[in-house]
């Protein structure tokens, strides 16, 4: 923005301000956190097994806590050259009690990062939108675990879907680095056919230590006529292995006044374990109203009495996700 001053720049800025003011009054409305249908708030890639199974992965702080989930560590970004058999794709759905969810995998699209763009955004699909659909990428359903969370009368069901992705190796070929993959899915509940569609975008880079793969990428950039070291530097930065957020506590606290006014708080082991990532939260509740479903700590007016539940997912903006659930018995 260094050209002679746009006669509309001021308008744009003012418009952004005012429109955001107006939009925010309703954009993040209170409906989203109300768990009235099936939602798939969590999607994770991870490597299964022991650390030895992941030859090129360095053990990171926080990965151990996943042992109870029989996974080693979330992988993000996905590195080329890794044994695809060790990969699992996990979706977690939540739905009102009695609504059993199923997940259908949709199309996979593969995009090429536009290295030539002066504004290449390595974690943002908006610059890599051109892609061809691949139909032959198989998903093998590994297991589904459906369980009613928590206590009596609580209307929420969590279902964990694990998929193996044997065909992923084809896409992790070190000779064809830097693709961006987008995966469509749809979760459908058994009641009323309610669905929650979504997509998962993930990036496949060479391991930063894999000099041969990065030479391939550099050669690719050269073919595209790019002499922008900064763009490659950004790619390498994006390829840095991410340590996912670790949610260690979700706590509702009953307020003193009415017994229905609660404070919800999510506790993390450091909001930025990598020191290079930020986190975002999103709350879902079985009933009531939230002050701000995006805040680490928020008020919760759990209308009515009896058990109420709150589900929270935390994202670290680099593909790492964790989630937790808590209940409270609200007294009259």
């Amino acid at each position, binding site marked *: 923005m260094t050209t002679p*001053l746009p006669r509309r720049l001021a308008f744009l800025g003012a418009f952004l301000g005012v429109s955001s003011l107006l939009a925010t009054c309703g954009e993040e*409305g209170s409906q989203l956190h109300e768990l009235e249908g099936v939602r798939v708030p969590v999607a994770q890639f991870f490597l299964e097994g022991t650390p030895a199974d992941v030859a090129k992965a360095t053990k990171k702080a926080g990965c151990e806590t996943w042992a109870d989930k029989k996974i080693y560590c979330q992988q993000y970004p996905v590195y080329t050259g890794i044994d695809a058999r060790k990969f699992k794709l996990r979706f977690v759905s939540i739905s009102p009690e009695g609504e059993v969810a199923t997940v259908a995998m949709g199309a996979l699209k593969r995009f090429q990062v536009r290295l030539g763009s002066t504004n290449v955004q390595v974690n943002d699909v908006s610059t890599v939108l051109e892609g061809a659909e691949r139909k032959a990428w198989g998903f093998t359903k590994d297991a589904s675990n459906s369980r009613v969370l928590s206590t009596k009368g609580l209307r929420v069901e969590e279902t964990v879907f694990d998929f193996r992705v044997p065909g992923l190796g084809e896409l992790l070929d070190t000779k064809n680095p830097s693709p961006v993959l987008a995966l469509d899915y749809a979760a459908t509940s058994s009641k009323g056919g309610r669905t929650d569609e979504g*997509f998962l975008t993930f990036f496949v880079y060479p391991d930063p230590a894999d000099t041969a793969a990065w030479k391939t990428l550099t050669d690719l950039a050269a073919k595209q006529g790019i002499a922008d070291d900064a763009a490659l530097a950004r790619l390498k930065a994006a390829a840095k292995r991410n340590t996912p957020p670790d949610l260690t506590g979700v706590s509702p606290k009953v307020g003193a006044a009415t017994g229905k006014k609660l404070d919800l708080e999510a506790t993390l082991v450091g909001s930025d374990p990598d020191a290079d990532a930020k986190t975002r939260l999103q709350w879902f509740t079985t009933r009531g109203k939230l002050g701000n479903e*995006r805040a680490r700590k928020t008020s919760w007016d759990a209308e009515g009495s009896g058990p109420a539940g709150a589900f929270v997912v935390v994202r670290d903006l680099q593909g790492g*996700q964790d989630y937790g659930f808590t209940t409270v018995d609200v007294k009259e």
Partner: protein
Amino acid sequence: MKVNSTPRAQVSSLLAAAVACLGSARALAQDIAPTEAPATAAPAPAPAPAVTAPANETVVLRGEVKAKGSTTPLKDAVVIQSDNRDNNVTTDAAGRFEITLPKGATKLLFRAEGYDELEMSVSDGVLAESGPVALEPAAEVLRLGVIRARRKVEVSQQSLQRDELERIPGSGGDAVRGLQTLPSVIATNPGSAQITVRGSAPGDNRFFVDRLEVPFVFHLGGLGTVVPTRMLEGVDLFPGGWSSLYNDATGGIIQLRTENRIPERFSGQVELGLAQSSVYLEGNMFGTPPSADGGAVASSNASAPAQGDAEKSTARVDDRIGYRAGFRRTYLEVYTPIIKKFVDEERLSFTTFPQATDYQFVLNGNHASGTWQAYLLGAADRLSLAATTGLSSSEDGKSKFGLFNYFETAGARWQSNLGNGWGLTLAPQQRYLIIDQEFFGNTVDVRSNKFALEAALDKRFSSQVSATVGVRPEYERVTTDVDAIQFPAGGPNPFWDPDTAPRSKERRVRDTVSGAAYFDVLYRPVQPLTLNPGVSALRGNWAHQLEVDPRFSARYALSQNHALKAGWGYYSQRPEAVYDSKDYGNPDLKLERAIHYVGGIESKLGSSWETDFQVYYKNMLNFVGNATKEPEKKYENNVKGRSKGFEALIKKQRTGRWTGWVSYGYSKAERRDPKSGTWRPFDFDKPHSLNVVSAYKITGQWEVSSKWQYQSGSPTTIIRGGRFNQATGRYVPANITGDGTLEANDDRLPAYFQWDARTDYDILYDTWKLRLYLEVLNVTNRANVVGRRNSPDFSETQDVTGAPTIPTFGVIASF
């Protein structure tokens, strides 16, 4: 002061001259029969009624007539001896009169155009009341030349005068908002002052204050115009087919005209409103009024020496300097405690409530061969808030937004009649601009200094041919401090995740030279026909951004009251700076270009009715859109557009008790998607728009006005569910296009209708008046659908309705 003391013929001619001066034969002295009248003494200044020594049973009474509620003297008011109406005089420019009365005269009658007649007792040659005679405004206005109709100089032109703009219901007295009552002038959003004209985008318009360009015209993107209406004489809108005198725009030209006369006296106005207040002062200084020495005046109150048609005069120049100063400020922050009660602070919190400030200072005067004006204008907006957007990684889950926009511009316009048909206009301008913005934790701070000089040379070759040639070179230095992520091509879209976009922190300094030149000819080969060929050249920010635009218009007067008109031309404009920036956009972009076709007929019906019917077609050739051929360049000249329509305006000038106008516009505006090649309705396309504006004076002090507005609904896009983006944790519309845009416009909101009403009441004091106004927006409390809001997962759509019935009131004190 004119003295009616001469023989009958002279009285007759003087009266006729006085009345003719006012523009109507409906004489103020209509029942005055020319006859021999007693002689009066020679005029002499007399600020208050006084009596000279009686002689031969007569007395000479001197006095002053003024408007009640102000100190404005009434020129050409007629003072009549009630029982001998043949004996009358008229007041001079200072409102003074001197009349010789028989000693036994008992009553004097005072008449002035636009004011109620007043009869006052006289005893022994002394008025019953001391001090100036104050006349109250009349309910009926004869419009005897008081409102000077501006000659239409463009084939497609609409003008509204200040007194019309100030009282249009629903506009809050805002100048540009008032234009929304004209055909095919549509508000971008209900309640916004920002306008679209004939199917063009708001940014395709260009705004001038006289010949000064202002960098932004609206507070906070559309809250109101940065120049208060009180500073203006009127506003001209050229919606298409304008001459080569204006460039760098394809939508419309909006000319905010300041007054060019020297204020005769010190006066002012203070307005107190619910959300803002303002103060305005005007007067003159230095020099002496032309009437003080009785000499003729050259160039006093003169307008531009258009086409060099004024000859040099040796008469004394009115050497006074007029000044006008204004200041406005909003104060929404005083409502903080109230607003906080209605705002959920967990979702929305203000750091700075919206603030808008503007100031104006204008000087004008005369020089030996013309006129000059000097300007200092400025405006500032502030706003900062934090709100939930779902895109925040902060602990409170809110994103921060803030802006501080400020501009100051100083300039001058110097117009000179060089003699022999030559005229010269020079208009230098300096402008300083600050744009500081914070959004999603990013900051962009812009400082810009711009210098421009417009020079125009007029030549009147004969009564048939005149021409104008002009240039406007511009130099600008822009310093930009950026600590921000990079926007994706085309701006933010639902895929966009500001926390993962690349960030740059740097200072960029850039100097650019651009400019425009024009050549315009007026040719009248035969009396009823006027041809206006011309050519305009525009050079943008880059050397390859150069276009030469030929233009042509013609006007044929079918009679004194009817004229046919037509215009055609090419129009170019610079792309937005973010588009053709070397660092951010595509410097290879060309100028955006359009072709206008305009035709119509305008008429005057009787003394107070005007009609204007126009058809138009606009072809937009190469507007900027997201790149499709070479995506890495982000932007290309790949968007085409077209609009066509019909407009009708029937207007009754302010005569009698009421004024008003009816405007109707039919339009069809479309844009072509560069990727698919399909045409779709333009975002601001509204096929039908109808406005009925009327004002009625119940008494001289009380007026009621009304505005009915009907418009087709805005185009909108049907959202077919949502899809959850696992990367951002937000849903996006399921039918979003590949480049993240939603521009199908495959649906339309319900039609919009609103009735606004207003009433103004003047309380007249001796030398000042208090105007109370009450404005009621949406009188019928109609729930107009102004948009659609989707649930966060796009599973449900809900109509968003506009404001309910809202009364506002204010107080304006003026003297």
